[in-house]
Structure formats: C-alpha cells, structure tokens
C-alpha cells in the first residue's frame, strides 16, 4: 500500500464503531495507521449513546421488576431509587467499556492518535488543529449527530438532545419528548419509570413508525397503561415558546392548535450524518443524508472509504462494526467484499423488548411482494406464564415459498431471541425448517417455533 511519501498508509477519521475496528485490523496487518477523533474516544455508542441509555433502561427495568414483585409473593414495599446513584451506575457502565483509555490502546498498537476535528484540504491530506497529515488511503467514519428541531424556538428555551438529557441531575417533573422513534420511546420508558410525567409526540400516526403496526400498537398501549406516558401521535410540532421559566411546546393535532408546558423538552427527531469535513476538497460525493459509496464502501474518490452512520443508511453500532470490518478488508486486499444488509437486527430496549429483522409487512406491501404472515402471542408459551409477562408476540413474514424474509418480536429478551430469525433470514431458511428445529421448554424462543409452524405453504 505505502510508498512512504505519505505520513500514513491509512488515516481513519472517527474512533467509533465505523472507524475503530478497521484501524485495528489494518494496523495489525503492518500498515502505518492514524486515527482522528473530534470528540470523546470511542464516539457516540459508549459515551453518550447505546451504553449509557441501556444502563439507565436496565436500572428502570430493575425498579419496575421490583415494583411488580408482589405477584411472585415478594414484599417490596420500600422500593425506591436515588437518582445520583442511578447516574453513578450509568457512569460505571460507560467506564467499563474502556473507551476513555482507547487512545493508550491504539498507541500500544503503533496507531497514531490525534484529537481534533479533521478537515480535508486535498484528496490525500487533512488538517487537524492546523497540523497537516497525509495518507495514501482514508476511512471516513465520522458518525452522526442528533438532528435539531426545524421550527421556531424561543431563545430562552434550552432543548435537550439524547446526549445532554443524560446529564440531568434529577428526573424532571415533566418531560415533553419530540419524536416517537426508538430513542424517544426509550427515554419515555426511562423517565416515566423514575416518576416523570412524560408526553411523547410523533408526527406519524403511530409510535415506532418504521416497525410493524402491531409493534406500534403494543408499544403505545404498554407506555400509556403501564408507565402513564401521554402518547400524542399525529402531532406536528409548530414551535417551542417560554411560559414563565418553563418551555411550552406548541403543536397541531386533529386540525387544532395545542400546547403543553413541561419542565424539560427532549428532541429525538433522528440523526444526521457528520459530513461537514471538507469532503468537497477531496472530491467525495455526498448529500446531507450521507456519503455516497459503492458496494465495496468506496466513495467517489477511490482511495477514500466510508463506514458507519456517516453513510446514513443503517444507523446502528453493529452495522458500523460490520462495515468497518468490510472496509478494512477492502483497504488491504485486492479481493473485495461487499456488505449484505438482508438481515439487520434492530432492538428497542423497552419492557417488553422490541426486536425486528429483515422486512416489515409494510415494506413488503410497498414492493408488492406476495407474502405469508403468522403472529403468535407470547402468552401461549410456558415461559410467559412462569415469568408473569404476558404482553408480546412473535410475528414472522415469509415469501410465497415459505422462506423467511422478516420478523418482529415483542417479549422479554426479544433482543436475544431475534438472532435465531436473523440467522434464518441471512441464510434463506424456511419457516418450516425453523419450526422443525427443537426448542427447549420453557423458553421465550418457543414462541418463534410456534409462529414459524403457523406458516402453511
């Protein structure tokens, strides 16, 4: 790769999921590698994304389990929480990822580490804190940032995003969440569990609009009935004003203007790829929705690859890691490989958990595919009975020949159970093949077998 006319063989821009894996692999192959990070080492997931939110969700799940323990004959009349301790738990989970020490790890592997925002100044050169670094090849893995609200907002209002809300010293008395996607509903679950009066507004007719309709219906019911969350679907936010010292969110719903005053407002309307790094100076094509890449993850400039959220396609850590591995292979070898997005699992960590993979029924209808579906409530299986967790279902979707193409699970441990169906979809298995596989009794996975058995070809 190198002819030593450049400072490095490879410069990776971004130390998160999309960048770190490739940096490691390429350095292990003996190449001179540098990694540039503009924010905290490790990027979003370990510092202000998956890890802290899932740690808080786990704390809220434990609290809710304890509150419901009476059903099992266990007295928990003194159940309570101390939010600073909950935050300390969250911080411990972050610390245990080791992300804060990753600079030392990279340096021990001979990888150069630079802190600062990278900006291309030519196709083979970037500037970081006014230091110019050149490389034969680049991997852009700058991730994504939370989108801001595109309506008038009073200058006196401070809106939270999914990063800043983690630092609240205590749960607010009331919280208005704008956006009913996975991030919005997870924060609704967290703060409602800790006693906050939560409103969640979504412009689409249902929460989690990308999931199957049954998933949305159950999520809305669980959040409203179990957690007391006020679900406001078909609500178009028109502005945020100030009322005394608190924000007041204004929205249109059912043809009428409404407004709700809340102590805090969280904006969770999605993410946008971080593409403002001088890509024009390197002739890399992009739009505000992400960097354009070919099937080998190569950009319009052949020595520059991109991976992770910055592609704007599948904004999940596991996809970033997967793409980073593929980019590393393609950076190193002539034999190129391509990512396969047929079976990307998605998990929303509510109670019960929501997991899905492959196509939703709506996706299939849009493509005019002939499909078969089967849905089984989890309350028919033994594990739901002994766990006293009756809410949920498994839904499977197959093509006309019975080959699995999509699935959704709402149940305890759905995030684990979904991988059986992920494997089946990835390898083109039929529902009958899954149904004819022994599943242990009593496990949540039994519901997968029962749902697959209901598909008749």
């Amino acid at each position, binding site marked *: 790769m190198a002819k030593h006319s450049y400072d490095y063989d490879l410069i990776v821009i971004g130390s998160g999921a999309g960048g770190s894996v490739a940096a490691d692999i390429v350095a292990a192959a003996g190449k001179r590698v540098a990694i540039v990070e503009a924010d905290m080492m490790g990027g979003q997931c370990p510092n202000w994304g998956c890890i802290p939110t899932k740690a808080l969700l786990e704390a809220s799940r434990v609290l809710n389990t304890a509150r419901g323990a009476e059903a099992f004959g266990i007295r928990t009349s003194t159940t309570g929480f101390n939010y600073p301790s909950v935050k300390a738990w969250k911080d411990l989970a972050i610390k245990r990822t080791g992300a804060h020490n990753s600079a030392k790890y990279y340096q021990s592997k001979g990888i150069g580490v630079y802190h*600062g*925002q990278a*900006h291309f*100044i030519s196709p083979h050169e970037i*500037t*970081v*804190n*006014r230091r*110019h670094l050149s490389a034969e090849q680049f991997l852009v893995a700058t991730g994504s940032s939370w989108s801001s609200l595109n309506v008038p907002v009073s200058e006196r209002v401070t809106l939270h995003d999914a990063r800043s809300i983690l630092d609240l010293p205590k749960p607010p008395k009331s919280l208005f969440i704008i956006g009913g996607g996975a991030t919005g509903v997870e924060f609704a679950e967290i703060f409602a569990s800790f006693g906050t009066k939560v409103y969640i507004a979504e412009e689409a007719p249902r929460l989690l609009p990308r999931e199957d309709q049954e998933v949305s219906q159950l999520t809305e019911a669980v959040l409203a009935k179990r957690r007391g969350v006020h679900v406001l679907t078909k609500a178009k936010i028109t502005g945020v004003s100030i009322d005394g010292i608190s924000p007041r969110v204004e929205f249109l719903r059912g043809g009428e203007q409404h407004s709700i005053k809340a102590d805090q407002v969280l904006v969770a309307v999605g993410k946008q790829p971080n593409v*403002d790094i*001088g890509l*024009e*100076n390197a002739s890399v094509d992009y739009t505000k929705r992400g960097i354009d890449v070919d099937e080998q993850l190569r950009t319009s400039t052949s020595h520059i690859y991109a991976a992770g959220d910055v592609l704007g396609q599948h904004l999940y850590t596991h996809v970033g890691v997967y793409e980073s591995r593929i980019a590393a292979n393609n950076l190193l070898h002539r034999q190129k490989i391509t990512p396969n997005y047929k079976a990307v699992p998605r998990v929303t960590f509510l109670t019960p958990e929501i997991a899905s993979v492959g196509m939703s029924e709506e996706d299939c209808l849009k493509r005019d595919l002939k499909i078969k579906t089967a849905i089984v409530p989890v309350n028919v299986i033994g594990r739901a009975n002994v766990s006293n967790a009756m809410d949920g279902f498994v839904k499977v979707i197959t093509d006309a020949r019975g080959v699995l193409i999509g699935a959704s699970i709402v149940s305890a441990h759905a995030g684990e159970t979904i991988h059986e169906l992920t494997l089946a979809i990835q390898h083109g298995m039929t529902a009958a093949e899954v149904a004819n596989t022994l599943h242990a009794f009593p496990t949540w996975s039994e519901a997968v077998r029962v749902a697959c058995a209901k598909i008749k070809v």
Partner: protein
Amino acid sequence: MTDAYVIKRGTHDSEAFDPLKLHQSIVAACLSVRAFEGEAHDTAERVVRHVISWLLTKTEVTSADIRRVASSHLHTYHPEAAYLYEHHQLVA
C-alpha cells in the same frame, strides 16, 4: 469571533480568517449585479455572520471552503450575486 485559519489556494500557507475581506468581496459581487449599496452591505453582513458561525467548530479550512459556504448563503439572499461571486472567484 472565530480563530480559524484559511489555507490559500494552491499553497500550504494559511492566514487568519479575515471577515472584512469576505465582506468586501460579497459587497463587490452584489454591486456588480446592480444591488443598492445598503442592500449589498446588509447581504454581506448576513453572509459573513453565517460563515463565522460555520467556522466556530473549525481550526483551519481552505479558501475554497469559504467560497463554497459563503456562496451557498449568498444564494439565499441574492442568487444573481451568488452566481457572479462563484464565477468571479474561479477566474480570479
């Protein structure tokens, strides 16, 4: 204010971003398409404010970056001047 530096075209030399210089070049573009002088200064002020805001998170950019960002904002306020600004800079 911003502490960003600008790398000049075709070189590796950089100089501190000069908002006045940008202001003047935008005024010149606006006046070339017969904008009123007051309007030209107002437009330039707005565009420079956008560019400064964009530069807040940057330490060093190229003159092409400044031209591109200024041009995209100028396009909002004065498309004709933006056209001239882009093309004048390219031949200058």
